[in-house]
């Protein structure tokens, strides 16, 4: 997508979406929309480390939850405004991404992946034992009654998440077109060769984990205000980890567009499914789709579309 087109669509979406909240009265749309947009951020974040760099993160829930709990802790302690909470959450998650990466990125990709699982387990245990944020029983957040410009707080959160989603995609797109992105792609294709070509593989991998982690934390920061009740079981839920992997792999991992398509498609499907079928069946479908796509369509939907378009061009 040419730069101008991209930014035009981006601005249109954000402005249109924000103004549109006044036009639409159906709150369900905003509740569901928030979740889908949240997954756009999570899927995009995961893909920066997964699709762009080739390192699998199984613990996306950990980074998401760190963002959520940082917001809770700082809200309780200092009553900071939401934008400040978001920045703090991003910083906290980014730091954790950096730390995990520093400890494990010198090893094979599989050990990094397992460490992310380890991280999720350890962090969840820490939070369960941390009474200040409610421990295992969780904590309540009271969102404000009145909000500037919007009819209610959900619409404000929706617009906020819309802005964050567009920003996340813009960052991903910037990465793919930058020198860093080319270096990450080289690492993904053949890390040893990349190192021998002068690519500082460890440094770039650390940048990738930090950005990815920070983005996931940012996605998690508004979550407590959205659900109003947060407990470790819901924040650290495997559901986030699976979706963060399934959406980019189904959408397509090599471009910034894949996670967006995967999140919009799978996210909307799940929102529809939660009202029609059981939540377990919903989860089962995610797992089955992930496995099916990984086996049958490894390039994802974007890959399928490319092959289709290439085929037509030859005719």
């Amino acid at each position, binding site marked *: 997508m040419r730069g101008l087109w991209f930014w035009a669509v981006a601005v249109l979406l954000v402005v249109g979406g924000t103004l549109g909240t006044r036009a639409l009265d159906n709150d369900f749309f905003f509740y569901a929309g928030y979740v889908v947009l949240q997954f756009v951020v999570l899927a995009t974040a995961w893909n920066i480390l997964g699709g762009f760099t080739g390192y699998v993160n199984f613990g996306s829930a950990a980074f998401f939850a760190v963002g959520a709990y940082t917001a809770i802790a700082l809200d309780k302690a200092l009553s900071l405004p939401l934008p400040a909470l978001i920045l703090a959450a991003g910083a906290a998650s980014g730091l954790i991404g950096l730390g995990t990466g520093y400890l494990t990125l010198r090893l094979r990709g599989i050990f990094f992946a397992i460490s992310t699982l380890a991280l999720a387990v350890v962090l969840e245990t820490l939070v369960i034992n941390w009474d200040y944020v409610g421990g295992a029983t969780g904590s309540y957040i009271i969102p404000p009654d009145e909000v500037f410009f919007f009819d209610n707080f959900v619409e404000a959160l929706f617009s906020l998440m819309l802005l964050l989603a567009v920003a996340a995609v813009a960052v991903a797109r910037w990465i793919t077109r930058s020198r860093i992105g080319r270096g990450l792609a080289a690492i993904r294709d053949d890390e*040893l060769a990349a*190192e*021998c070509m002068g690519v500082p593989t460890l440094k770039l991998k650390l940048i990738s984990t930090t950005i990815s982690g920070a983005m996931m934390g940012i996605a998690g920061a508004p979550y407590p205000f959205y659900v109003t009740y947060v407990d470790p079981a819901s924040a650290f839920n495997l559901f986030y980890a699976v979706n963060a992997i399934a959406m980019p792999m189904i959408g397509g991992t090599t471009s910034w567009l894949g996670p967006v398509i995967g999140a919009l498609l799978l996210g909307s499907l799940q929102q529809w499914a939660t009202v029609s079928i059981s939540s377990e069946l919903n989860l089962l479908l995610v797992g089955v789709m992930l496995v099916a796509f990984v086996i049958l369509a490894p390039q994802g939907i974007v890959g399928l579309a490319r092959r289709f378009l290439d085929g037509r061009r030859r005719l």
Partner: protein
Amino acid sequence: MSRPILECQGISKRFGGFTALDTVAVEVAEGERLGLIGPNGSGKTTLINCISGALPCDGGRILFQGEDVTRIAGYRRTRLGIARSFQIPKPFRSMSVLENVAIPLEYAGRGGGDVADEAREILRTMGMDGLADSNAGSLTQIELRKLELARAMAARPALLISDEAMAGLSGNEVDEILDILMRVNAGGVAIIMIEHIMRAVMRFSERVVVLDAGRKIAEGAPEAIQSNPDVERAYLGE
């Protein structure tokens, strides 16, 4: 003779209980063409892995242009001027040939001009500019070998290590690669050539080093090496 561009002093490398390199000492002068030969498993690839930084060595020092690079990361050594090609080509399969060459140019080539133009120029010297936009995963064997060399050259090295670039190629293709390496050397780049194709190594090298079972067993002019009984014994066995 001026100071050597590369000095390997007493390089040792062990894998568990297996000694792959045992206090190997090799020197390369600026602009020199050095052949590195030895039977399979003698440690040639391990040695260049240690020189390029892909493997840490267990003992010894590596000096490049007078600087001790023994503990320096691989990517920094490439930026200092050591480049290598891989025995089994390792192209970046999601990228085009041009993009493959652009990576080392951007990250190690130290050039000031337009990356795409410089990359095309390098491909032109290899006779590959027609393939610039082809996907790197779709190349033939000789094209892959040439891409390996093109990428190594894009790093603008002072020392190029070619690891069996001609293995498995036809007679004409071997000559093609030989020509490329000669041209590269004419530009002032020192070259270490690892090969099993004897006629190529002997024609190409000014000096030959022979490894066997991790040790250097002979060193000298090509003719001397060819008539060296120790070398013959190493290849043919007792």
